[in-house]
């Protein structure tokens, strides 16, 4: 083997503050020439032969024997020592605070992780940018304002859950790995809507104090599950419908591809949130009140967003196909509102949260402008 030349080798360590102690083990090894090999007799469950399924070797295929057991209480050592490995004495704690399975778990976390990895896409490669054609000014301005909103709000779903991720016991690594894919998805959403705003003769529009308030409240949620209710169930559920509306209103195939692909990603996030809350509420029914309180506030802020034109009008213009058909666009938005509320409540049902009696979202969009203002936002 050739000798690697290291630049200024004689200077290395010349000012070191820490003295290097020789390794007792290596001294013995070099003196005797006999390896220790004790670790070979100190393996965890041995003889495991995971078999790949038709889609390759997935996490579910390695849930075998003791390795497939996810403990209800995360390990007390609170380190990143892999679940199922032999844990030596003295591993330092990383101070995880979410150590109960129910606090983070979702039965579909591993499945969604694998799916997310398999269904990643590139906004540079997979969007047919070269097909983008100039749009009428009103449509381009509306699309750019919508993209401004989306590029503003999307990354919260990376920033907020990953704050909790570092507090999760490593025994629940499937959840952390799923959240890592969610962070990657949100990075792509942030990038693709920014790119779209800057790609067709427009630019960014106006940011939103109300959106920022809803993002701040997501940040401030007092627990991971409370945040999940607010973020994954209501916030991302709402954005999922927005992406579907985006697919529908897309004035070009470029926009359609963007929204459709984001929609796919977003439904994984909603799927995790729904299943996490199902697990949490089953194990700890009392948590329902905390989630209800979050949703009381989140629903109120969602309704407030309909009080500013830059949130309402771009979608109506895109829905109607231009300012000329603004009324038609508003009418369609009203019709879709019912679907948003219906699907949100269905997801709450699926999570095991009886939200219907407490929900302040009217099923009829006209209530938003017919009711006295303070009845809507109080």
């Amino acid at each position, binding site marked *: 083997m050739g000798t690697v030349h290291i630049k200024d080798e004689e200077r290395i360590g010349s000012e070191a503050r820490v003295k290097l102690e020789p390794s007792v083990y290596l001294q013995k090894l070099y003196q005797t020439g006999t390896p220790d090999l004790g670790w070979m007799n100190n393996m965890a469950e041995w003889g495991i032969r995971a078999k790949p399924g038709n889609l390759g070797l997935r996490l579910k295929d390695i849930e075998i024997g003791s390795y497939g057991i996810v403990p209800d209480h995360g390990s007390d050592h609170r380190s990143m020592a892999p679940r199922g490995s032999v844990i030596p004495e003295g591993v330092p704690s990383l101070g995880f605070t979410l150590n109960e399975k129910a606090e983070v778990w979702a039965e579909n976390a591993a499945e969604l992780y694998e799916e997310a990895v398999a269904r990643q896409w590139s906004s540079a490669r997979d969007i047919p940018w070269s097909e983008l054609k100039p749009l009428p000014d009103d449509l381009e301005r509306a699309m750019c304002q919508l993209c401004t909103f989306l590029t503003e709000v999307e990354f919260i779903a990376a920033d907020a859950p990953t704050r909790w991720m570092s507090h999760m016991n490593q025994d629940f690594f499937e959840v952390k790995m799923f959240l890592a894919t969610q962070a990657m998805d949100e990075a792509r959403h942030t990038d693709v809507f920014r790119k779209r705003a800057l790609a067709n003769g427009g630019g960014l529009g106006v940011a939103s104090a109300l959106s920022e308030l809803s993002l701040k409240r997501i940040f401030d949620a007092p627990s991971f599950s409370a945040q999940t209710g607010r973020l994954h169930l209501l916030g991302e559920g709402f954005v999922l419908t927005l992406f579907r509306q985006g697919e529908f209103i897309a*004035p070009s195939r470029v926009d359609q591809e963007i929204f459709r692909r984001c929609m796919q990603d977003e439904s994984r996030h*909603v799927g995790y949130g729904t299943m996490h809350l199902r697990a949490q509420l089953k194990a700890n029914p009392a948590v329902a009140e905390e989630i209800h309180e979050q949703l009381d506030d989140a629903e109120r802020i969602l309704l407030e967003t309909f009080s500013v034109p830059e949130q309402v009008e771009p979608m109506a213009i895109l829905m109607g196909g231009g300012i000329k058909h603004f009324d038609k666009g508003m009418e369609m938005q009203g019709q879709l509102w019912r679907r948003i509320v219906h*699907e949100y409540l269905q997801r709450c049902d699926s999570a095991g949260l009886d939200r219907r009696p407490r929900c302040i979202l009217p099923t009829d969009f006209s209530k938003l402008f017919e009711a006295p203002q303070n009845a809507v936002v109080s």
Partner: protein
Amino acid sequence: MPSFPEPQWFLALGRLMEAEGALFQRLGFAETRFVVRVIPDEGANGGEKLIGLVIDGYRLSEAASVDDLDRFDPDFVICAKRSVWERMLAEIAESGRPSLRHTLSSLALVGEEMWLESSDQLREDKFYRYNQTLQELLNLASRVSG
């Protein structure tokens, strides 16, 4: 020649899906069982057709008439009148994909001409999770004769 919505017609789509391996691998795997429900137009003869489909990764592994929806246990049912399905297929035959507002997702969003039925929102959401795969599968219809 099988014609829409015979199971054999869907199986022909499935064979094209496998032949197009690279496209579907790039979209990523999908795992879902769903039903296509074709409702006769007013005044038309014959009853409605239910075709149960299973996508297992990158292949359509099953396409068969369904008598008992509960037994088939689909994640979701995509429902539309025959004329709506046929319009979509005609547009696909013409240009390889449906027109912008006639995609599966767009039609299901409006919910008038096409709608989804499901017992659980979480399972219905698979329609969105795998939407590109479902649309690309249907877009292969331009290459199925009959």
